[in-house]
């Protein structure tokens, strides 16, 4: 085949190969034709730089830079390149969720260098796809690499990568790893393990991702070596940003135990004698290092880092909201179900024409006679309509809820470390919203500053954005904040929950300017005007501040003691169930 001399000719040739490339995988593959970029500038606008092809999972597209294709001399490999890109869409990573799962597993194998996970994921996926195409689909993928190698800057990692293909495809030494001076027994041993791994995990490729990362770990550990590896691999990085603009992937806040335990270094496995059990994770990760309930979750900062690696365009605040929402989800009340109490159609609601196809006993003779003294069935006969006999007294409206959180200097930043008070507030807030109530949130670290929602809101986003914010000022929740929602009696009743610690008593006793109401008066009035249950969740040992507690209880406040923050979870789950759960009798 002679090489087409112009970009337009290449485009025609590649367009003609598209249908055949889809057939390589299956006659049922349905993908839109790639976006053909006639110049590298045009390709850069689409986000394609470095390589001559790339995929996007969010819109299931393939982008081809035809100018680069021409420059790199791969124009004759249209079928191979296109089939490879299709492989990313239908084999690995295939979709945004699997892409996220693969990246999550790879991160466990790359302790301290997690930022290199997308690079490793791309190389792993390429090995899986290329091995399938070369060995089972009879495509000349080796030819593509021989062409790329003419200009590639060889690094240790590139050698490892090429040697892996040599082992997979049983070619002569040097057929792909052509720089003989870089050959070494160490690279050979690693490549041989990688080849076995690619073959063993070709079907359950997610399970092999952590092991592959561990195998690549030494090649990426040092910055200089990593940069060399990147430089040599730049031309093949076609799926590194595949998850961009893919929104927020659910289910990523919890620690993937299977993935973590799968990040075993194959070198350790291979050097372990037969029969000796025990897995060493490559990353040396401590399984006790999780945060949140049962230590089963990533820290918020790691979660955000991970999700932004998947989708650099993701909004950080949205990710943080999603993090606490995901952890809160198992503790939320069920969505209220519609009450289907058996009701009878007993209330007369006017008449309509009776048709000859209707039952005869439905005719309302009185109305028919009043309407027309001469009765012509089907023409002027009438039937009565009945409406449901419902009692509105059965429909209970859930009370709104006010959530006041102490956000003073003693509280941790929920963006950096997992925060139990924020989780508790999220559970109560979202449960209330589910039940149809409105929620007002207030973060207060006073004296100093406070933040609150714009009154009682129904927006989940507004509420979560408020709850996951951080002040770190003052020493306690500011009681005067209750003035705004409960200065006057509310038309809709509301529960009031304040989460704080013993500094509340200093706040209550704070001196006011002459003429101002004392905080004791404000807190009493607030509960009265709210009309619901008032709960003070205090990080305090029962028995302390007895007289003040007695005074608060006399006002009607319930005091819930927590001695460790995990008890907040229990409180919030119980509160949500007691006040917002639909009860079946």
């Amino acid at each position: 085949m002679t090489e087409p001399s112009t970009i337009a000719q290449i485009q025609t040739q590649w367009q003609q190969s598209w249908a055949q490339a889809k057939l390589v995988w299956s006659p049922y593959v349905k993908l839109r034709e790639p976006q053909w970029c006639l110049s590298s500038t045009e390709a850069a606008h689409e986000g394609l730089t470095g390589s001559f092809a790339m995929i996007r999972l969010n819109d299931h597209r393939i982008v081809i830079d035809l100018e680069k294709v021409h420059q790199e001399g791969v124009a004759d490999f249209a079928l191979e390149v296109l089939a490879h890109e299709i492989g990313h869409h239908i084999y690995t990573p295939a979709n945004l969720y699997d892409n996220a799962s693969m990246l999550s597993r790879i991160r466990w194998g790359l302790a301290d260098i997690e930022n290199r996970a997308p690079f490793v994921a791309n190389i792993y996926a390429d090995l899986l796809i290329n091995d399938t195409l070369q060995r089972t689909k009879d495509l000349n993928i080796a030819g593509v690499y021989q062409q790329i190698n003419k200009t590639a800057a060889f690094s240790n990692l590139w050698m490892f990568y090429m040697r892996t293909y040599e082992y997979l495809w049983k070619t002569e030494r040097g057929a792909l790893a052509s720089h003989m001076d870089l050959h070494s027994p160490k690279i050979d041993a690693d490549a041989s393990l990688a080849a076995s791994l690619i073959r063993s995990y070709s079907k359950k490729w997610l399970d092999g991702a952590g092991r592959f990362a561990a195998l690549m770990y030494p090649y990426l550990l040092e910055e200089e070596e990593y940069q060399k590896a990147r430089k040599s691999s730049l031309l093949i990085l076609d799926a590194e940003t595949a998850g961009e603009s893919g929104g927020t992937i659910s289910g990523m806040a919890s620690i993937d135990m299977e993935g973590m335990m799968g990040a075993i270094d194959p070198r350790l496995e291979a050097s372990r004698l037969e029969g000796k059990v025990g897995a060493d994770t490559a990353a040396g990760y401590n399984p006790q290092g999780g945060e949140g309930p049962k230590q089963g979750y990533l820290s918020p900062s790691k979660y955000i880092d991970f999700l932004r690696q998947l989708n650099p365009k993701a909004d950080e605040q949205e990710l943080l909201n999603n993090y606490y929402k995901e952890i809160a989800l198992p503790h939320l009340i069920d969505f209220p179900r519609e009450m289907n109490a058996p009701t009878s159609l007993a209330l007369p609601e006017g008449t309509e024409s009776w048709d000859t196809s209707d039952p005869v006993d439905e005719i309302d003779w009185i109305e028919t006679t009043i309407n027309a003294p001469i009765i012509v069935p089907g023409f002027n006969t009438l039937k009565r309509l009945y409406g449901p006999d419902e009692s509105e007294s059965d429909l209970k409206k859930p009370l709104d809820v006010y959530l006041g959180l102490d956000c003073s200097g003693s509280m941790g930043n929920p963006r950096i470390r997992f925060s139990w008070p924020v989780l508790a507030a999220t559970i109560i807030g979202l449960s209330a919203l589910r039940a149809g109530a409105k929620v007002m949130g207030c973060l207060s670290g006073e004296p100093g500053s406070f933040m609150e929602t714009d009154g009682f809101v129904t927006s989940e986003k507004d509420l979560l954005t408020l709850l996951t914010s951080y002040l770190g000022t003052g020493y306690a929740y500011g009681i005067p904040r209750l003035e705004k929602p409960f200065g006057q009696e509310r038309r809709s009743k509301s529960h009031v929950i304040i989460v704080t610690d013993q500094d509340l008593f200093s706040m209550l006793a704070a001196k006011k300017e002459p003429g101002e109401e004392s905080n004791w008066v404000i807190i009493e009035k607030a509960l009265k005007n709210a009309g619901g249950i008032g709960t003070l969740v205090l990080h305090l040992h029962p028995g302390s501040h007895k007289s003040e507690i007695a005074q608060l209880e006399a006002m009607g406040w319930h005091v819930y003691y927590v001695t460790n923050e995990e008890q907040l979870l229990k409180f919030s789950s119980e509160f949500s169930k007691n006040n917002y759960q639909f009860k079946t009798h």
Partner: protein
Amino acid sequence: MIELYPLLFHLRQCPEIFLCNVDGEAENHPQSYILLKDVYRKVYGSFNVEEQLLPPLHSAWRHQFNDKQLITFQIACWFFSHPFFNSKPSLLPSINAFLFEDLVQLSPLVSPRAWIEDEDRAEEFIRLALKRCHIPITGESTAASADRFDALSTTKRIEIITDTNMSIERIKEIRRKMEEEKAREAANSYGRD
């Protein structure tokens, strides 16, 4: 000279019975012993051959080897039952060395089933056997064969990997100490603030 793939195919067809029973029915002669004698006779080219013409297997033979090793011998018996090895008595000393030196040395490192189920181990098994018997592989130069065998060799790989693991551990240790130092400095500066 022989092609590799027919042998690979033959080895991977090893019947399950060869993998699960070492003692068999006979009281004094375990299954492995009987199979070995049979395969020696087959390679010799006659079942009426006198005992002394075959490699010796003395009476305490059973107690020298564990079950895993005996199963590995049985897999080898299956392998050498391939028609290519029939009536080649000159191979008997090499086969004997392969069984009682090479396979015994590898038995702590490779499970018997891996010789059949793992593609690389199966190829290593065959290349090692052919190397012992000085039989070249069709279509491969001596250098290419040696290179391919080196790539598959379990013992060689374990030597390299052990070195690599030690060097990775060293790098990890350095990084860990650097991290600790950084954390200590951060804690000191926090304390001063």
